[in-house]
């Protein structure tokens, strides 16, 4: 492991410490992306809270294909094969439920604040 790899998490923490307070401001728009992985027939994390304006990226780490389909019809991915990803940017605050259309018992929730 290189020195850079060792230091990266600390740099990240420093960066977060610097930007963190700004994110909590009501008028701030985050462009942070968060990864939710479909693996072993589960979305992990099952429930995710993000700031409005954030982009969520789902990456399939399973052998089986999965989809990301919102209950309201707001977003819908194609069938994602292993290691394929789908991203969606959440503009409005609210609670968004979604499921995998191939394995409908796989469900998840995005809470946008």
């Amino acid at each position, binding site marked *: 492991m290189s020195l850079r790899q060792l230091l990266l998490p600390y740099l990240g923490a420093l960066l977060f410490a610097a930007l963190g307070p700004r994110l909590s401001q009501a008028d701030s728009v985050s462009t942070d992306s968060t990864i939710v992985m479909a693996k*072993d*027939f589960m979305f992990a994390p099952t429930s995710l809270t993000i700031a409005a304006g954030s982009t969520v990226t789902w990456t399939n780490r*399973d*052998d*089986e*294909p999965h*989809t990301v389909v919102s*209950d309201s019809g707001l977003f*819908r991915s*194609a*069938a994602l*094969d*292993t290691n394929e990803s789908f991203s969606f940017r959440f503009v409005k605050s609210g609670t968004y*439920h*979604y*499921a995998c*259309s*191939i*394995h*409908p*018992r796989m*469900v998840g929730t995005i809470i946008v604040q």
Partner: protein
Amino acid sequence: MSEQRPLTSRRGMLKCLAFGGAGTVFALAGGVFTPIDLAVAASEPKGAAALGKPLFVQISDTHIGFSKEANPDVVATLNRSIDVVNALPEQPALLIHTGDITHLSKPAEFDLAQQLFSRLRTAEMHTTPGEHDTTDPSVSEYFNRFGKASGNKGYYSFEHAGVHFIALINVLQFKPGGLGTLGTEQLAWLASDLKGRSSSTPIVVFAHMPLWSIYEPWGWGTGDAPQLMEQLRRFGSVTVLNGHIHQIVQKVEGNVTFHTARSTAYPQPVPGEGAGPGPLRVPTDQLPGMLGVTRVSVVKHPHSLRLDDATLA
């Protein structure tokens, strides 16, 4: 409801072991299945002719596009299944594919599947889609190629040899966290389709997901299937065919015989075993014995149907 146990003679059992578990022949008379081991049936020279005229072949879950460890070459195993069908001494008039033609609903996968199916000697092919065939938003890839018979609705019926066939679709209206769904529109259509039909008409119903609850935690069932069964109750001979679970499960309930087919691509675990219903990796030499096709024949035409399961072993 009764559990089925294949009838095997000792001689037949030994042959069956030699075949590596070739499959099971089903004779249906008066609404009750009599399963006979395929190896036993094969050992009777007059067996095939005595058991009835071949009516149709069921194949399922070809998953063209799948290339993972459980079966890196699904084209080869489908080709072998097609060879088995083409080699039948008497060619059935119909072939029914109970869905998951493709793995990811991609145009190239559908095109390849159609190209492979074109080698079938069977005159007529009927299909119903699986959830792997319908992941594109408008389901146009499936319907553009296979939607003609149903007017892009996915459900339709037709007659053949005095048997009424009903194709149903239960993969379009998933309730998140729930099972497959037929929906009120389709159930209403079915009621009108069956209205005035004689109760002595043999009925074959086929859909992708099981039309009976095999294992709900994995979604192996259809939520409103009881309403379907209510409509079918008055008929003397009903055969319900499904795919989806990549293994043979059978049940006889009154006059209704339920049958799920093997996949031609890869096996799946038995209900409840492991984290979920993913591809089951088995040693390469065991794979052919877990893939296969189902053949249905008319016995004592037109009141009885018989199912044969053949593996690729």
